[in-house]
């Protein structure tokens, strides 16, 4: 084991369900979670005699994604039939794109541990999703739910440019942020809207010689964590396998493996000598797609600011840390909400502080994004302005924020109504301060004497004022008053 090192090679195949209103080739609603077989029609059920009609919106969504990933967009594409028999596929062929994908040769930048890396995109194409088999109860048969059949599915294939499990996860995160920003998919992984399939192998160098392990494809990973773990597991497994058997890409077969979340291992599904024969041929029911330049230009113009650019801007313009900027931009609606509140006059610093402190906390507790908390931009802006204008302090702001989650009123109204407005009125504060000074002669004494106890005494008096005013005293005003009083009595 003296002179051994290895390089990890990972490529990803990612399926993303597009968030169009209707399915890819019929008018059925494209919706998750409905009664089985309720969103179906003769076309997606594959009834004899039916014909597909392409959903232009789905095509547009895929083109948007491809443009955002710097891909070349084909001006002429077609649809192909991919043949295989499975009960969740009513026609026993899937309409997909084989040799003329709608886009290819792109790239996307990721940042891992502060290092930027370009990951090349081989191709992006569209296809229809299959249905689902339900194996419920021990009834001796399975049931087929065709609601998902015909859902527009975008397949993204990278070049094998990823070299660590972490890079794979970061790429997956980046892609999820991108499709959300573009508004083409919600990419909810629990609901299978984004599914990941890494292809992994190792190039091992031992005693000056190179060995390539057989490629393993791990099917259908449903979370970014699973992706990272499965890649990490595969590295160790392939290394151990090679050390034990010496089998390489030349002597072994490509394998397909499944991920077992419980044991944290991958399980062999099948090894194949050659590629399966899907008998691809052009679908005669669909005319080829000829893409007009004007249409592409219009799509390009409508692209929003992309996550990479927005993240950079959030860092430089608003002084967010890289981590906070990444979190904010991950959800386009949240980033939009932030900028909207800003445009309504919220002070930047205060708003940033609110977002990374209590808004993020409430979102995390509820397992939603900040945008989904139900607090509108004007109300968030109003809250930030109250702090900026010294009408409330941050402690009150946090308390108010919690109320905003359940109460629809404007924060200024709530503050007014519940008497939470900061007291900056010097005369009323002076009265309170005087009472406290009289009652705490010892602290006054300490506060006047330079030394260790002075700071503590200051804090104590301030705390007393806050307690008396239920936190509403403007600390700056109190501070000034206190300085003045101590000087006076000296």
């Amino acid at each position, binding site marked *: 084991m003296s002179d051994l090192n290895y390089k990890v090679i990972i490529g990803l195949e990612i399926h993303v369900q597009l968030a169009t209103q209707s399915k890819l080739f019929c008018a059925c609603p494209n919706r998750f979670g409905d009664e089985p077989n309720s969103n179906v029609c003769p076309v997606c*059920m594959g009834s004899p005699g039916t014909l597909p009609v392409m959903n232009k919106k789905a095509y547009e969504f895929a083109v948007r994604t491809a443009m955002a990933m710097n891909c070349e967009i084909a001006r002429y594409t077609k649809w192909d039939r991919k043949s295989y028999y499975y009960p969740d596929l009513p026609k026993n062929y899937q309409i997909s794109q084989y040799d003329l994908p709608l886009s290819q040769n792109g790239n996307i930048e990721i940042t891992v541990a502060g290092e930027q890396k370009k990951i090349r995109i081989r191709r992006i194409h569209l296809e229809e999703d299959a249905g689902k088999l339900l194996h419920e109860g021990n009834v001796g048969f399975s049931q087929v739910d065709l609601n998902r059949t015909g859902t527009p599915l975008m397949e993204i294939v990278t070049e094998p440019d990823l070299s660590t499990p972490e890079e794979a996860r970061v790429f997956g995160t980046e892609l999820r942020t991108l499709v959300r920003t573009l508004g083409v998919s919600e990419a909810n992984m629990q609901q299978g809207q984004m599914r990941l399939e890494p292809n992994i192998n190792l190039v091992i160098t031992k005693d000056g010689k190179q060995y390539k392990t057989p490629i393993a494809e791990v099917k259908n990973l449903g979370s970014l964590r699973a992706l990272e773990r499965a890649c990490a597991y595969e590295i160790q497994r392939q290394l151990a396998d090679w050390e034990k058997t010496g089998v390489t890409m030349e002597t072994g077969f490509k394998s397909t493996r499944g991920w077992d979340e419980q044991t944290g291992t991958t399980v062999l599904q099948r090894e194949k000598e050659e590629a399966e024969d899907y*008998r691809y041929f052009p679908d005669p029911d669909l005319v080829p797609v000829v893409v007009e330049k004007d249409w592409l230009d219009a799509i390009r113009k409508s692209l929003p600011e992309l996550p990479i650019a927005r993240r950079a801007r959030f860092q430089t313009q608003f002084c967010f840390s890289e981590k906070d900027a990444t979190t904010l931009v991950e959800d386009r609606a949240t980033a939009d909400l932030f900028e909207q509140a800003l445009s309504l006059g919220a002070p930047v610093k205060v708003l940033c502080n609110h977002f990374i402190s209590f808004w993020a906390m409430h979102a995390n507790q509820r397992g939603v994004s900040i945008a989904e908390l139900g607090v509108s931009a004007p109300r968030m802006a109003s809250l930030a302005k109250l702090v900026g204008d010294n009408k409330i302090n941050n402690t009150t702001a946090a308390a108010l924020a919690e109320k905003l989650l359940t109460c629809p009123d404007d924060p200024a109204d709530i503050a007014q109504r519940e008497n939470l407005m900061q007291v900056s009125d010097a005369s009323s504060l002076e009265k309170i301060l005087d009472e406290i000074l009289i009652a705490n002669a010892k602290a006054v004494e300490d506060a006047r004497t330079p030394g260790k106890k002075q700071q503590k005494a200051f804090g104590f008096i301030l705390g007393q004022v806050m307690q008396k005013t239920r936190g509403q005293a403007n600390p700056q005003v109190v501070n000034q008053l206190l300085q003045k009083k101590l000087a006076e009595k000296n």
Partner: protein
Amino acid sequence: MQITQLTAFDLLDQIKKRQLTARDAVEAFLKQIDKHEKTIGALITVLPEYARERADQIDQMLADGRDAGPLAGLPIIIKDNLCTQFAKTTCASKILIDYQPPYNAHVVEQLEKAGAIIIAKANLDEFAMGSSTENSGIKTTRNPWSTDCVPGGSSGGSAAAVAARMAPVSLGTDTGGSIRLPAAFCGISGLKPTYGRVSRYGLVAYGSSLDQIGPLGADARDIALVMNVISGHDARDTTSVPESISPKPDYLTKLDTPLKGLRIGIVKEYQSSDGIDPQIVAAIDQATKLYEQMGAQLVEVSLPHTQYAVACYYLVATAEASSNLARYDGVHFGYRTPNPEDYIDVYSSSRAEGFGDEVKRRIMLGTYALSAGYYDAYYLKALKVRMMIRQDFEKAFEQADIICAPVAPTTAFRVGEKTSDPLTMYLSDIFTISANLAGIPGISIPAGFSRDSLPIGLQLLGNYFDESTILQAAWQYQQHTDFHRQIPAGFIEQ
């Protein structure tokens, strides 16, 4: 004249003038069906209740003075591979023996909107694969001119039914000649429109890039009447031609225009065809002479790649069929094997028991042609040949307005004569297949009788979306001949 002998045009005229009710018409044809279906076997499903109900509705509309549509009260029979929500659609296959579609085909919607009454669904070769209707998984159809003979196929039921006057008109489908061949064998007229002229939505697919629905009837005018109703763009079929590219004409308007100056192409390569019945050659010669007398001008055209048409067709059509028929698997619809061992067996046994031999043969051919390692040599090559055949026609139509050709090398052959030799059977379509590969329209019209009194067909091929000119040429020919008026003995009401 008896109701069943009337053309669709005359029948509609009488209904319109209230000399005849839709119910009278329906009853007359149902009676004819009752009387002859046993001998002919043209029909898979007869719809007496449905037809009577529809007829009464239409009569009521007419009595109320409402517009009941251009085909109000016209009985029609449609091929049983066209989907109907109100009747089984079997494709003459055991695998769909009890299949009732959840929707109506576009042409069915159009016919019903126009007031036509579907009275029955006609027999065919299983999934429209065949040239004699002997491949039906349900029954054998006989030729009304000679019950020992086949009616041709695959729309044999649709053609025999019109020849036996079970309906004035019918719909068939044509993938390689399946309307024109049976029309010729049964002595009637039949049109295969340009690919894209009639929506295929609801036509159970055999070869999707070749399939086209068209009418069969006694004469060109009856066909024009039906074409006016079934053709036109349908958003549900992306291969159907948009109005902006080829607006739908009124097919009746040009019928009576004289043919003076029409350039009729005679195909050089067809002149030396071996194995073509000399009686057919003679009939075609007669027809072209007649056209010359009518003021048309004959020009020779060349279709050099036509010799590869049959081979090309049996790669393209079977490849598409192998994929189109994959859905009949016993899982989602149709026949399922009663006691499967496992889910793979649901597939293999349902298909083994449900499909007939010819369908299996074509699925295997197509699967093979699309397989890895063979695709380029077979399917891709066939697509290239198809393009050349298309270019042949484009060139020919620079010189000629229409092309005149035989429909088939023989007249109707005897039942059982060619069933053991599929290759000979495939050659029945040698003159019709090119039109499907190129996508052009073609019509078959009666042009004489053989010595043993079997009908001979004449084929007129037209340029893309120019059905009007071949209908005009056919109608003008029919003004000077009476072959199309002949009804086989025994089918005329006394």
